[in-house]
């Protein structure tokens, strides 16, 4: 009896260790996981390969040249880099205070009953496709900005060069505002994760010292969560830099470097979206690929920094919205 049990168990155990189905399953899984590494190399290589003519022709000067002239076949990336950075920074200026304040409201203040509905609404905002924000931006938001907010800004803050000059509607500021709306969900949800990881002991200690609600937040919560919140901001920046469709539809698409935020601008992602299928000469297409390479390099670095900052704090798992 005992012998039978043993003899039936032994082949099974052997099978568990070294059977070929087991080995091939393992290799299949390894292969799938490795596609991630292959993909990142592939993305970098394809863009570099696609841009090689432009890289050879213009060298590093491509990054600081502000001509973009398909007729003369002469290309420079500066207006697009400028537009991408300015629209993203505007978006951060708007979205970070609002997003962090909302996260604080949700973790520190809101009654439990209204927390979940607010969280659900913020998650739904993240689900709205870029092109729908663009559609809404072009037909609803931009006309409103042109007729109400921008004239008011010019009347009250017109002494600043950034709020002067003619009002077009389709503008850098409109681009910044639409991107701000689109990164609000990720800034809010990542900030909320960070704030939730602040130990209650911190808060209790501050309350015990007689601090008011706001003082608890300022002294115990915000100072504790500072680094993590910075990570959330950097992650938001990464998303802002790569936003394509909505920005393309509202930013005005003019390759220029203007001081006024009411003037149209252009971003790396938008010029690729608009001109890629129209690129007639090989150098034109290669220059667009090089813009893509610049965009990839910027977003790669920003995202890597954000992940490293958040990872040391929360142990990963912050890549989702």
């Amino acid at each position: 009896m005992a012998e039978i049990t043993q003899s039936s168990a032994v082949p099974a155990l052997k099978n568990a260790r070294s059977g070929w189905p087991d080995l091939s399953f393992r290799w299949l899984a390894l292969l799938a996981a490795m596609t991630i590494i292959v993909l990142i190399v592939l993305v970098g290589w394809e863009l570099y390969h696609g841009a090689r003519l432009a890289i050879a022709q213009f060298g590093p000067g491509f990054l600081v040249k502000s001509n973009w002239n398909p007729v003369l076949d002469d290309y420079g990336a500066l207006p697009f880099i400028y537009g991408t950075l300015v629209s993203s920074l505007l978006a951060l200026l708007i979205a970070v205070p609002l997003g962090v304040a909302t996260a604080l409201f949700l973790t520190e203040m809101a009654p439990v009953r209204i927390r979940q509905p607010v969280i659900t609404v913020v998650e739904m905002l993240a689900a709205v496709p870029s092109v729908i924000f663009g559609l809404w931006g072009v037909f609803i938001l931009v006309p409103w900005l042109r007729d109400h907010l921008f004239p008011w800004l010019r009347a009250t803050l017109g002494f600043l060069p950034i709020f002067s000059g003619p009002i077009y509607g389709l503008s850098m500021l409109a681009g910044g505002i639409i991107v701000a709306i689109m990164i609000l969900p990720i800034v809010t949800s990542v900030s909320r994760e960070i704030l939730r990881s602040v130990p209650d002991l911190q808060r209790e200690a501050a309350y015990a010292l007689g601090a008011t609600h706001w003082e608890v937040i300022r002294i115990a919560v915000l100072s504790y969560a500072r680094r993590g919140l910075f990570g959330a901001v950097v992650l938001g920046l990464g998303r802002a830099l790569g936003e394509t469709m909505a920005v393309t539809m509202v930013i005005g698409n003019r390759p220029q470097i203007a001081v006024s935020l009411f003037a149209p601008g252009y971003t790396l992602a938008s010029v690729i979206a608009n001109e890629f299928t129209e690129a007639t000469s090989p150098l034109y297409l290669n220059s667009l690929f090089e813009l893509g390479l610049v965009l990839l390099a910027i977003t790669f670095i920003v995202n890597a920094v954000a992940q490293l900052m958040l990872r040391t704090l929360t142990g990963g798992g912050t890549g989702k919205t």
Partner: protein
Amino acid sequence: MSEADTIAACRPSLRQQKQRRVTSLAVTWLMGASALLVMTPLFLVLYFLIREGASSIDWNFFTQLPKPTGETGGGMANAIVGTLVLLAMGAVIGVPVGVMGGVYLAEYGAETANYWIRFTADVLNGIPSIVWGMVVYAMLVLPFKGFSAYAGGVALGLMMIPLVMRTTEEVLLLVPQSYREAGLALGIARWKIITVIVIKTALKGIITGILVALARVAGETAPLLFTALGNNFWSHNLSQPIAALPLQIFTYAMSASDDWHRQAWAGALVLMLMILSINILVRLLSRGKSAS
């Protein structure tokens, strides 16, 4: 000054205390107002989608092809079908690779290797979708000399891989270790333990993750611009350009025709409803998960 005097001097006056309390209250209201402001865009977008789009949705919208420039009427039947076809092709690539990669991370991988794969996957999730479009253009459109549904599907599929991989790993790690040990104790092969016990236990979570990834790529326009390209007719051949709802919305929104603007709103409403219904499904599934 004695110690008691110092303490007395440090103690806030009544006026200061009141000021502190008022500041605190003001900040509380300010944060509540921020939360309201953050929620506003969603309601505004949904309101205008319904106001501008609902009246243009009729039977024709779901059954007819787009009309040529200048003619009114027509629908987006081909774009709706196109989006479904592209999503199916994306899932064929993204789901198996993503799920198997997640299995590797959760069940096999060594600590260091896993760290870097996770890290790379998170960075890939942050790469702008337009970059994926360019990469697939260089990979599939240039060599085969033409835009195609295949290229669009591959672009969406590649974007899905890191998304599905990360969520699969997360839910697999939630399966109690004792389940695996029980399987091993019974002498079941490792791959059988993973497929029959672990994946089966976590199946709901994996499906949720796949749906989230589908909802995310369903609204993508940028990666399709120069892969699937768009098409005003029915596609009978996947090696030809294919229409997609987001592409059609973009083209119509940027056109000068009022009738096309009307249709863009209708298309946007349909796309939004598709994505919202996937999200509601996800919510129903995950509610069941937390209850069990």
